[in-house]
């Protein structure tokens, strides 16, 4: 998938590129509104990540023009302004999602995946996971045809780990995903452990879950 990162902070844009490249996205960078407009006219993108505070213009004003040239693309607004009007204006102008800075790159990818499923029908089918299969769209997990009951948070946790498979996710990253702004750093780490224990217990009655690894002192990883 092709991504245009419109971000004036060069370091931040570079880090985003590094991360997304590993997840097999192709990235173009634009540090100004002018450069972004040029890219949008020249290429077709699947994702356009748009920072609102650009040195030569407001990111929001770029949106209608971009939509004309790239109507199929998914737009995610990234901003440190974080005020409500921007969010509403952005979504009104046709943005698909909105992420307030500072955001986790894991969260960004998770949002992009969700949009991809919704918009481009990617991963709409079930995804295999050991002897199980996971449907991210309907949010069910199956052993053969047997549907297994997981709580909302347990499923969130599992699908987040699955999305970032082969990467160790820290307890903090996991609790931030599950509880968002309500996460209380160290305080919630135990609950991540408790949820993982529950997931293992529920799944182990059907088949082994050795793909779900505990990385000592760090967190958890799904290895595939």
């Amino acid at each position: 998938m092709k991504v245009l990162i419109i971000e004036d902070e060069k370091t931040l844009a570079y880090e985003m590129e590094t991360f997304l490249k590993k997840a097999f996205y192709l990235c173009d960078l634009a540090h100004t509104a002018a450069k972004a407009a040029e890219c949008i006219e020249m290429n077709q993108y699947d994702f356009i990540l748009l920072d609102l505070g650009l040195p030569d213009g407001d990111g929001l004003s770029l949106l209608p023009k971009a939509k004309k040239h790239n109507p199929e693309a998914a737009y995610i607004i990234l901003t440190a302004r974080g005020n409500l009007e921007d969010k509403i204006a952005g979504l009104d102008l046709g943005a698909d999602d909105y992420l307030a800075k500072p955001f986790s790159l894991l969260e960004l990818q998770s949002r992009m995946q969700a949009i991809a499923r919704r918009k481009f029908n990617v991963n709409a089918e079930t995804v295999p996971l050991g002897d199980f299969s996971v449907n991210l769209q309907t949010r069910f997990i199956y052993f053969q045809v047997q549907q297994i009951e997981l709580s909302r948070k347990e499923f969130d946790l599992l699908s987040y780990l699955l999305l970032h498979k082969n990467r160790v996710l820290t307890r903090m990253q996991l609790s931030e995903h599950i509880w968002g702004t309500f996460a209380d750093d160290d305080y919630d780490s135990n609950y991540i452990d408790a949820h993982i224990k529950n997931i293992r217990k529920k799944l182990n009655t059907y088949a082994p879950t050795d793909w779900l690894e505990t990385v000592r002192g760090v967190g958890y990883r799904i290895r595939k």
Partner: protein
Amino acid sequence: MKLSVKLIYFITGSKIAVVLIFILSVPFLVERIASEYTNYSLRDQQKKVMNNVRRHGVGFYLQGDKSYGSYTMLKEEYIALEPAGPGVDMDTIQTEERIVEQDTLNYRVLSYTFRAGPNRYLLEIGKTTGSINQYNKPLQRIALYVLMGLIAVTIIIDLIFTRILISPLKEIIQTKLIKRKFPFKEPAVPVKTSTGDFKYLDQSLIDLMDQINVDFEKEREFTANASHELMTPISILQTKMENLLAEENISEATTMSIIGMMKTLGRLKKISSSLLFISRIENAQFARTDQIKPAKLIADVLEEISHRMEEKGLKLHVSLSDDVTLNNVNQDLLFQFFYNLINNAIKYNVEKGSISISDHRGRSGYSIVISDSGIGIAKEELDFIFDRFRKANLGENVGYGLGLSIVKSIAVYNGIDVKVASVVGEGSKFTITFGDFDAKITRGKP
């Protein structure tokens, strides 16, 4: 006590005092007046007698006798003319006793010697003092009545006048001090008055409020800018660390220190976003147009937070009526509001403690009471618990000291009243009162 009441008390008191002094001094005054008058009339009679003597000679009175005397029927006045001894030379008016036909009476006596022909004579004219004082009592009574009547009338006038005079002060207190709610959004209207002092007071208050507004604006702007400027570098650090953590060939020690850094960064992130959140609330960036059922909202909060409650083995009692709807609030803000309060009730609770959430309707509005069996808050800390970065309870999980500041900002913004009562070692009780609400069915009915 109100100024108008004080003024009326003072005016009435001083008037009554003046009247009393006057009434009490009436006998003395009357005596003075009477004695002046008596002296005057004695002199007048003396003049008449002397006129007669000059015109007609002493013989006009003496008629050949050696002396002359006459008194009125009730001996209230007398007149006597007799030869004066040698060396007697008088012109006085004195109060003296005289015996008239065996009665000893007090007279005001004019004694005057004069020469008529070869002889000198003594003229005495007397008037009883008793007749002078007889007017005292009725005079006092009448004066009392008249003055009391006058006092009543003037007090009514004073009442009306002081009311009018003081009314601008009342208006200043009403409009500037009681009704104005911080932050002062609409400009203050000066109170119309011709009294200079009130004008000055009013203008000073307006200036003060403007100054507070300016400072408040500055602080708000600073918080927003500072938080915003912090977010970008935090973003960069966070993404860098995340990428670093994903590197294949880093040692375990490096991994651990990256995780440590991420935790610290997470704290910085949390503080900045909390400050930004507070400044957004104070900037009125949230619409207050939602209608929410508190019972439902609190159930959502409890679901979000139940894992923390379970871990501590807390008992929870919730008793909220389903039929109450809160008007003109912001759902997200209220969620955060109750989340923070209930989170604190859990965080500062003891193992196997309890939390109780109940509601009631009173005269002041609809109240929700959240009480816990926690460690409580010391009395001297109670006033400061809503201050930013204030941490009253220094336990292990003290947080950032912004949770209750957020609660307060939301409360102020949504017009919610929050009261706290607490006993150290027994627990805390937060009473949250909403003024704007609807309740259709009475409580207890299905």
